[in-house]
């Protein structure tokens, strides 16, 4: 069973994503902030990470940089799910090393397809 970590400060979104991904037989891990997310990554080594950018404390970019600096977590694909929809932000996210940058609100089916493609 593939493991997916969802990091978002919005409880509603974390809960919806957990329900959605659970229906597709993914094992869903959740974190409400980036520090918690990084701890979970190191313990459980998820196959994919969905991460918000604007969060209190450590933000999504800093979180991605920490993961990339650690050889054990460097290869885990990370998708940014964020309300920041400006073009400059999308480019910044991709160049930071995220495999995909999805703007909120996103289509559930599209997210599922992207996850499937990456896991393939």
């Amino acid at each position, binding site marked *: 069973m593939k493991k997916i970590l969802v990091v978002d400060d919005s409880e509603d979104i974390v*809960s*919806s994503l957990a329900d959605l991904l659970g229906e597709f037989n993914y094992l869903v891990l959740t974190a*409400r902030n980036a520090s918690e997310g990084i701890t979970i990554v190191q313990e459980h080594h998820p196959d994919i990470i969905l991460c918000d950018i604007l969060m209190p*404390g450590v933000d999504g970019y800093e979180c991605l940089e920490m993961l990339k600096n650690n050889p054990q977590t460097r290869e885990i694909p990370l998708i940014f799910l964020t*309300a920041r929809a400006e073009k400059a932000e999308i480019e910044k996210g991709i160049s930071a090393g995220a495999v995909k940058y999805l*703007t909120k609100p996103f289509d559930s089916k599209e997210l599922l397809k992207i996850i499937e493609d990456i896991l393939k």
Partner: protein
Amino acid sequence: MKGFPKFRNALFLSYIWVSLIPILVLAIVSLYLLAGYVENNALEKNNLVAELTANEVSTFIQGNLNSLNILKEALNNSGSSDQKEIQKLLQAILGNHGSFENIFILNRQGTVTNLIPYNPLFIGFDFSTNDFFTQTAAGNRTYFSQSFIFPLTNLPSIIIAIPYDGGVIAGIITLSGLNEILNKIRPGESSNAAIADAKGAFIAHTDLQKVRQREIEENLGLFRQGSRTNSGFRWLEYDNKNVLTSVSFVKNLNWAIIIYQDEKEALAPVKNIRSLTYLGMAISLILVLFFSIRRTYNITRPVSKLIAETKRVSSGDYSSKVECELYDEFNKLIDEFNLMIENIQQREKHFSSLFYNNGTKMLLMDNSSMKIIDANPAAAEFFSMNAEEMKNIDINRAEYSLIFNISSDKNDVQNYIVQTRVNNSDKYLDIYAAPIELREGSFSYLIIHDITDRILAEKEVEEYKSRLERLVEERTNQLSVANEKLALELENVRRIEENLRDQLSFFAKVIDTVPVPIFIRDMNRVYVDCNKFFEHYIGKTRDEIIGRSLFELIPEPFASKYAAMDDSLINLRNIQSYEYKFPDADGRLKDVIFNKAALIKADGTPVGIIGSFQDITEHKLMEEEIKKALDKEKELNELKSRFISTTSHEFRTPLTAILSSADLLEMYGRKWPEEKYYKHTGQIRRSVKYMTELLDDILTISRAESGIDAFSPGYINLHEVCSEVMESVRVKANEKHILRFDSQLGKNYFNLDEKLIRQILSNLLSNAIKYSPDGGMVRLSVSSHAGRLHIDVSDEGIGIAEEEKKNLMLPFYRARNAGTIPGTGLGLSIVKKSVELHGGEIFFDSRLNAGTTFSIIIPLTGDGNEENSGG
């Protein structure tokens, strides 16, 4: 120099010709002679061999014939009666001469009477019709038959028949003995020898095959002729080879003895000699080449050296000297050359010194490039340049083009005087220019004499002379007219003075009425005149101003500044305009623009300055206000764009929750348990509610920002309003906090906007509850004091970090420690706006994890604001 042959090449070729021709001729002649000698030698040898062979063959046949003759004698003497005796004789002959195959004795009728080897079958055999019998018997002479292959031996044979008294004796002789002769005398390994009979058929051959197959020698006719000249047949093709052929004929039988020798073998010595000759020639050629190159080089080297040195000399390097060489003539030439160079060097030095050390200005110019290529120090000094700069002068520039007379024909000697500017002063120059034609091109040589002083002196004398003449003439005329004019002049002067007085008073009036302060100061900075407006500005009367110095009337540091500006104006004899301050009669500093001009007498001496100024204080103030307004506008714009981007972000989060839940409900809602179903509908509802609140907040702020209908105060019972808000907040808080309300207001009415006050209270109170732990105390105190309303809301919550305090009131700003506590970040900005609309102020005091107190002070305005309405 094209077109002429090179001496070196010619010399070299001569050497080659002289040495090579005798070698070639000698080699060719000796080769020719030797080849002929060898060839003749070989032929002679072969001819001799052929002749010897012919003799041998002749001897061989003669031997057999002799045997038959012995038999004939015996038969003639014995009368041929006893056949047994004959048989014995025959056997003796056969024993001596192995060449006989058979010997037949025939009687006169041509029948065999006896034979050896004896065969009774042949006795009585009739040969009367055979050639050998008929011809021998008829001619009574010796008969030699043609050669034929004798069937019993299968060898070439002939029949020899001789007559005797009782008939004919015939012997069949096998010719195989001839081959033995041939093999014995064969001249060389690759040679062949052959014997052909009179018809050309080979009867003997070193190649026996040819005999057996009865081959025919086709050249027999040719040989017959050749044999007579005894020269042999030098070249014949035989078995596809060139062969040396010699032929000799056997007497009586007319047989040909032919010796063929392979040409290669025969002429082998010639080949060796030829190879040797070629080798000798090659060595000679190399020696000749070596010798020729060496000699040519030795002879032409001094000439080349001289040419190189001459080139150096012609390019201007006179330090040349050539060393002596091998040959006397060259040494003399070199000595003369060196002498010549020394002479040239001397002359070069002489001319250089004439050029460079000459006080006269001299230049050398290239006519094609129009560049100066050399200038002596005197010329360089004249043009105030160094020699290099001289070379870069652009001759086409106006002042130089005159000097170098660039448009003229450069082929003639010229002498001309020009007037031009050199180093910014006018000069008269007497110039001598002469062409120099050199191999490198065409040049001009210029000698320049500065005759400015002379010309000027001449001119001055000329002018002086003419002025003197004019003066004398004028004076004479003037004296006569002077008296008449004097009377008229006096009248005129009186009239002009009157006019002048009128004009002056007119201008004084004009200047007084101009609404601009005008003043005049002399060179000692003393005021000599001013207009009414200036009096007004400075707050003194004209009498108090005129005659007083600048420093007496104007305080420092302004007086010093004005004086400094006056000095610079007088120095430049110009007009001046500058912006500065001016202290007016009341001591206020005004921003003014000074406009000043220097007053200069006709003879050029300055007498003072005249000035005016314009008050631009109002303009300045206006400018500053406009700038402030612009800054504010810019700030507002930035705020707006940040607000829009933040707002869109705030909307996206609940929209995401809604979309996610909607997607999930659509996909799985039907099969989910109720609890999960409602979880997501609840989520949608919550998000919508959040968005609605957010929108309300935004609209509130927007209204406040735009100022339309934002503030509509009325008299309200503040105590009551506070109680109501308290109550609604308490309900929302689920009674988990302790809420306290301290009021010293009583039932007073205040002139406030109720809607805004409610916003202030509900936002501050709900924040206090939101950011405090359960059970924490939240307190609202309201009081009015000295015309000001005080509202304080305090809590025991998480507090606000020091570094976040300055941003706290910005729209959408949320402190980090707010964490996941829901909120739009707009509450406090709404509060701030609402307070500001009331003309009040908001402060807060906070310690992390200890609590926060927000304090609001609103000034109470309006009549009877703190109205006691009967309470």
